[in-house]
């Protein structure tokens, strides 16, 4: 019997997710199911305390690094459940499976963050991806939602195939799928210039780029984000992206540490294209979910700078960035979700005209999230960007950062357009807000997160730094 301590949170989550699935058969009120999944998340967070260590001969690593990401996933899960409770009723998909799928996909992400082996990584990635495919198509009667799921599934299947092919090549070259083993083998045998390994790395980079929606593997994102239920859009703009960065960190900074020069040469153009396409195409969007999809692409580009830096500080900056992004992006989606009431979709950016007059509090919160996404102090978005830019400059990539800040300034235009519509225009029609205590709580958590990290980031930076130190 191996020591199951390190993997205990995942075991607990598996059991609880199955329980939630079964409970759905007996409990008719879906709010109760939602509450159960929040409790499940809290229990998992609690069990994570003692779960330091390595299990299954290094296939599963529970260290500070993975825990930091797991906390982001659990935060993402709880906030998503809070904003979903009312929303899934309004869009008439009020089924208990929704919550168990959220739990299963979070389980997948947690396994990804802890993967010490490419096969375990693949298992986690597939569990996450399959659950999210279903969630994306959860509004069964809506063609757009179906389209979202199908697109995501088809392109996701390609990405999985790339990952498997890359893994197979790596195995062929090094004889192992263990992440540290790969690094050791490459170092021992001087394989840094090996063409086959380079090819494998390109395949793996493509697969991960798909998960974080980096250009040119971003094509699915706008359609999927637009068509998926808004709560799921919020969920998958944060969770899978953070999970993607968690595995990128492990695979590129550990397994392929010896090929830093090669993968920088691949990731730098990807990062620049991602920031460029994300920010520039977002300028012309009229649907706010689509706009935030492009914004989410752009943010993946900024975060990639931390990976490119390739230093412990760089990785820590990516982790802080993902945490910050979780707060501000789910916050923004929480406001968007409130606009959906009855058959009024509230997805056109013009629906925000005059919101400050009719709903000053919601508009004020949206303003904070938009400024945070732009990266204006004193919000968390600024601190996140600062840290990423600083690590990249320290690693000598000043010119890439110069490009990044220019795109960041361009992004101000489309984020500010929402603020402009809310504050500078008169309301055309009265917009009803579908508010609920749950959404209120989610918004409160998000805005406190954005302001606290924006004003006193020290604690979070230190935790991220410590987490990276042991990795």
């Amino acid at each position, binding site marked *: 019997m191996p020591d199951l301590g390190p993997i205990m949170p995942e075991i607990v989550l598996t059991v609880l997710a199955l329980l939630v699935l079964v409970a759905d058969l007996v409990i008719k009120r879906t709010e109760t199911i939602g509450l159960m999944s929040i409790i499940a998340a809290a229990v998992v967070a609690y069990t994570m305390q003692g779960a330091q260590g390595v299990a299954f001969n290094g296939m599963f690593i529970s260290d500070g690094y993975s825990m930091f990401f797991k906390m982001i996933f659990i935060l993402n899960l709880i906030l998503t459940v809070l904003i979903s409770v009312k929303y899934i009723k309004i869009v008439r998909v009020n089924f208990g499976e929704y919550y168990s799928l959220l739990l299963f996909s979070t389980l997948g992400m947690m396994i990804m963050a802890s993967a010490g082996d490419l096969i375990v990584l693949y298992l986690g990635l597939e569990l996450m991806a399959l659950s999210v495919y279903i969630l994306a198509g959860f509004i069964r009667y809506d063609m757009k939602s179906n389209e979202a799921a199908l697109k995501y599934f088809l392109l996701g299947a390609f990405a999985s195939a790339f990952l498997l092919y890359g893994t197979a090549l790596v195995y062929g070259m090094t004889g192992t799928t263990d992440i540290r083993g790969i690094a050791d083998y490459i170092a021992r045998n001087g394989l840094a210039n090996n063409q086959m390994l380079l090819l494998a790395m390109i395949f793996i980079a493509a697969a991960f780029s798909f998960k974080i929606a980096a250009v040119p593997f971003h094509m699915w994102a706008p359609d999927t984000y637009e068509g998926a239920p808004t709560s799921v859009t919020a969920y998958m703009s944060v969770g899978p992206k953070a999970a993607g960065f968690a595995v990128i960190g492990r695979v590129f900074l550990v397994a392929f540490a010896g090929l830093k020069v090669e993968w920088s040469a691949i990731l730098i153009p990807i990062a620049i294209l991602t920031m460029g396409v994300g920010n520039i195409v977002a300028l012309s969007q009229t649907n706010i979910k689509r706009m935030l999809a492009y914004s989410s692409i752009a943010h993946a580009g900024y975060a990639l700078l931390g990976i490119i830096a390739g230093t412990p500080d760089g990785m820590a900056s990516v982790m802080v960035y993902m945490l910050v992004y979780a707060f501000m992006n789910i916050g923004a989606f929480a406001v968007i979700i409130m606009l959906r009431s009855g058959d009024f979709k509230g997805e056109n950016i013009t629906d925000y005209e005059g919101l400050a007059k009719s709903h000053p509090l919601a508009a004020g919160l949206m303003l904070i999230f938009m*400024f945070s996404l732009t990266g*204006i*102090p*004193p919000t968390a978005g*600024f601190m996140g960007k*600062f*840290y990423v*830019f*600083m690590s990249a*400059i*320290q690693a000598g990539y*000043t010119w890439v*950062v*110069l490009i990044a*800040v*220019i795109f*960041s*300034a361009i992004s*101000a*235009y489309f984020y*500010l357009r929402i*603020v*402009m519509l809310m*504050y*500078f225009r008169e309301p055309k029609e009265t917009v009803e807000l579908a508010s609920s205590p749950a959404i209120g709580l989610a918004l409160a958590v998000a805005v406190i997160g954005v302001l606290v990290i924006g004003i*006193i*980031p*020290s604690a979070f*930076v*230190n935790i991220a*730094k410590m987490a990276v130190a042991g990795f």
Partner: protein
Amino acid sequence: MEQTLINSMGSTMGFPILSTLIFLPVVGAALILLINRANESLAKWAALLFSVATFLVSIPLFTNFNKATHEMQFVEKHAWVPAWNINYHLGLDGISILFVLLSALVAILCVLISWNSVKMKSKEFFISILIVESAMIGVFCSLDFFLFYIFWEAMLIPMYLLIGVWGGPNRVYAAVKFFLYTLVGSVLMLVGIITLYLYAGRNFDIVALSKMILPYDMQFWLFWAFFAAFAVKVPMFPVHTWLPDAHTEAPTAGSVILAAVLIKMGAYGFLRFSLPMLPEASRAMSPVMIVLSVIAIIYGGVICLAQTDLKRLIAYSSVSHMGFVTLGIFAMNVQGMEGGILQMLNHGIVTGGLFLGVGAIYDRTHTRQISDYGGVASVMPIFSAIFIIYTLASIGLPATNGFVGEFLILLGGFRASQWAGVLSASGIIIGAGYMLWLYQRVFFMETNQKVVGLADVNAREMAALLPMVVLIFWIGIYPTDFLGFMHESVRHLLERVNDGSARGISVAHNVFESLK
């Protein structure tokens, strides 16, 4: 230690006076937020109370400041983000102190002049004013580069809202333009700041950074990175185009804040960062900066002659006047620099006053077109008297503050380069032309139908307009009270900039030297 020594020099008995100045307006803004919308008229009283209180707290700075040293005074220092070695570090020297006082004063006047003119969302309006005030004071007090950047950027949010929500017809365009111009400049500076910070071994301390010697190449690139932010803010030619739109479309209080304080932050940035941290690059680039300044002086002035909009004319006159300021700073001698700093203050007072005056009359007529006016002197004699004082101070008539500042700058400018002195002196003549012509078209000539029967300024408006008049004559007649603050700091700064031991004097500088 050094710390306690400095504290005792700016004797405030350990009372965190600068933090109080920064956060008192924020407290006021938070209280206004809590005011019920039914009692919205309370908002302006609260704003007045807190802006006056802030000003009163700032008075000990004026009286207790030790003029005999260039060291930072009233220093406060606490660790803020230890992970990045960022400190909450505040302090004042002779260059920054006057602008803190000016910011505190301007906030009161802005509240007074907006008393009845802001009808929509007045709660949010006064919150924005107070937050801008606190960010402005924060910018001038910061001794940590990161903290400075936070205040510098945080100010964009309330200014954007002030212009966009309460501005004129073309306000949205002006607000977005203002925001984007400033943001592009600022983020380029951020890259520079981070580069400097890493080079200095993760240090944001402005005092320490001002003592470092950087390689010339690095100075060169940092100079232009900082230039991007500061030149946009000043605004220098050719990145001045946001200013006419923003000043024109902003509500009166917004124009006053922009003109009186916000654009000073650019010139202040050159004085606080570019010159002491990058002395060789600043010296090498000074010919370029002087050329840009002279272009701004003349071009800004000539454009004023063609304006038909009151606020737009005054806005372009700012481009011209700020050209004098940058000319003085980059003349790199005592007269030029002291004149430049004094002229920053003067321009804040005079142009702030002009915008207050325009605001007072705009409240009555709701038009900014010069052609809609005429003969105002016959219906509003007191107002006309006050406005002529502003006008003459703007031209730089002796006995007004404008004369002292421009005279010193021209003196410094001539010493640096004769042709720059000659050309910029012509700017004063153009200035007299457009300001007097403006005064004539608005206040004399035939009485326009639109101004018939206008009431003269009331007590509240007088309270908003008169402090600037007092300052105009105070500085104009006895400038020593104000120049005295800056002697030591300017001397110290020039020592640093003109340090003979500094290396890497460029070819451009030598060419420039030979022109003299």
